[in-house]
């Protein structure tokens, strides 16, 4: 499903259907500097969306606003019925913390540097959130953890500490850790940038599998090949704006915007 399709769905007359993720007029400042400029986008359940763009353009900030790790300054983010909203710039927000906390349980996030907890084994890393956040029993949590470690192909490494794993393995572990909370959406911030190029594919493979299972995923990436092959559509971002939202083929063959063309030339 493409961006255009989702647009139509929102504008649709009949349907009460709501996209899984709705972002409207999202605005974010850092120290008076405008970082996200009035961004609006809808993302449907099951989509895999890639965000590309030069460094410093606000990609990470956008992801962090989606799961409430950053406080948005204006606009709204609505994911699966939970909404963070500010009608006007800097307007007071009620229960931001409570809502953001609820939101994060629906949204898994994977970081460039994996951020596995070094003092826990892989299994313990994955069991932690189910036990602490969802109050599952040890046995339940372990069953869940084993299931997802198996899914990412790391069941055999359950009892290793993060430092005893390769970058690719650590990142797959981090994905399993996020999945253990059964999120509706997965966010990835340059998940393969810190990984040995020969191990990148094993991580991308996991994401492709999740896509097949219908997981909604937003991936900030520099892997153009992956973006092209796996995404439903691609967002090109520059200076805090979504310059172009296009099907993967369009954007690489015939970018609509001059700025996109310039950026992509470096990768061709």
């Amino acid at each position: 499903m493409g961006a255009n399709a989702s647009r139509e769905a929102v504008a649709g007359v009949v349907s009460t259907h709501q996209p899984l993720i709705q972002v409207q007029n999202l605005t974010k400042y850092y120290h008076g500097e405008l970082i996200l400029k009035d961004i609006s986008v809808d993302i449907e359940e099951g989509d895999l969306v890639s965000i590309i763009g030069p460094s410093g353009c606000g990609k990470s900030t956008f992801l962090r606003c989606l799961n409430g790790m950053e406080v948005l300054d204006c606009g709204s983010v609505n994911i699966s019925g939970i909404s963070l909203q500010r009608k006007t710039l800097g307007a007071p927000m009620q229960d931001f913390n409570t809502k953001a906390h609820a939101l994060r349980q629906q949204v898994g996030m994977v970081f460039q540097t994996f951020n596995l907890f070094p003092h826990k084994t892989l299994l313990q890393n994955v069991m932690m959130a189910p036990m602490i956040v969802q109050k599952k029993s040890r046995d339940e949590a372990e069953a869940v953890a084993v299931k997802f470690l198996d899914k990412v192909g790391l069941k055999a490494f359950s009892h290793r500490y993060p430092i005893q794993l390769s970058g690719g393995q650590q990142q797959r572990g981090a994905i399993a850790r996020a999945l253990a909370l059964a999120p509706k959406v997965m966010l990835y911030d340059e998940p393969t940038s810190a990984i040995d190029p020969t191990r990148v594919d094993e991580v991308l493979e996991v994401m492709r599998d999740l896509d097949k299972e219908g997981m909604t995923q937003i991936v900030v990436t520099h892997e153009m090949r992956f973006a092209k092959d796996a995404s439903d559509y691609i967002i090109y971002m520059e200076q805090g704006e979504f310059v172009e939202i296009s099907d993967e083929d369009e954007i690489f063959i015939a970018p609509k915007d001059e700025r996109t063309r310039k950026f992509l030339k470096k990768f061709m």
Partner: protein
Amino acid sequence: MNVYRLLTKTVYRNTFACFFALSLSATAEAKDILRWGADGQGGAPHVFYDPKNPERLTGFEYEVAKNIADFTGKDLQYCPNDYEMLVSGLKRGEYDILMNAIVRNVWQKHAKKAGVLLSDPYYITHLQPVVLKNSEIKTVSQLKGKKIGILKCSEHAENAVRQLGAHFVIYDDEVKAYADLNNKRLDCVMTDHPETFYYASVDDSIRMLEPVDRIEFSVAVRDDHSDLLKQVNAALEHLKNNGTLRAIYERWGLWNTETATYFKTSVLPQTPATELERYIADVQSETENGNCYLNSLSCFAKAAAVTLGISLSAMVLALVFGFILAVFRTYGFRWLQCLTATWIEIIRGTPLMVQLLFIFYGLPNLAPYLSEPFASWVCMNPFVAGILALGLNYSAYEAEIYRSGFQSVPIGQTEAARALGMTHTQALWHVVFSQAVRTVLPPLTNDFIMLLQDSSLVSLITIVELSRTYQLFAAANFNYFGFGILVSLFYLLMGLPFTRLARHFEKSLSAKMQRHA
């Protein structure tokens, strides 16, 4: 001089009170006991432990105190305290009477301010200057411009030195002063005659000059104890009239013209100076063989237990309180951060010794303005005060260690935890603190070794711990060298397991770091 059972008993009683009963008030007045404050450290012939029979407290003031207690129908209980703290201890109610070379002429002036009452004199003597035997100084008038060693808290000696036109150097005990006289750092030592006389009796390298000044010794009580003062005066009058005091002074070889004139009796002694002779014989035999070390061991071992007990308790307090401070300082509201930062700076910016004395002797001054139970809380028992001061002081340092530990955990760790739906508190607890523990263990353990040594300061607040025991034995035996090595061994042995532990933590940490790299 050896195992002092009396001293040990005090140690035990206090230890018990502290670790088991934790009673906050040291002022509970037992009915039939007369508590007597004095400093037995190097206190011959006033108050000291019998060199031959370590179970026995002795000294002419001990005998006078005993007789006063008997006269009032009470049991005497000896409460040791540092000489300069004797009056503060009396005011705090650590003991009922103070009798330990308290110079009436001096204290009469300060009595009101100090809040004490002074009895009639029980002994009269003078300041006694001494020089090395071969010194060119033959008379007191030649002391002008010279350096004279005097003891701490002897205002009368300071005044006398000033009048002689000389300079004074203040010493903790006469052993150190005489050592400096021998080293030629001093030209003269001037202490009250009894002390000088006893020292001279076992050291033939010194020569006495003519007497200076007149000194009257009195018993001191708190100014709200005028009844007790009357009893003491009645006792002294009685003991004077029935010849008990004279007999005591004669046995100690201290019967002199000044006292005889005051007592209106003959200056010729009737009783031989048996105690003086015994003292000389004992000191000589003890210093000749090494028995004094062996005999002191069990006393040192008990003192080591006190040191260890106080240090461990203080460390637990420091670890817990330091953690709380660090959490407030790092994660608290802005105002809480400022408050804890200020507190930590105050604690780290003032000497531990000042904090200790402030808590023990300073805080009780607030008692009159407070209601119960706060009023009795500020009058802490020495062990509670010692543990509190050490614990509070170290908590400020531990707080900074914890804080750097928290900060050593990368921010990505907290973000990952929060992204997994943990609350801020859960993220801190399960991710930040549990990782920081590993980095802070080695420096915390090292700090404990420092604390073990700093605990020697609690000797300032009447606690007889390891370093205090060292001073007691060293002063009594005129031997700071041998006992110094012995006490150092005790400290080293106690610190050793913790040094090993710190090394172990360091190793396992650096192993982890290497794997991270």
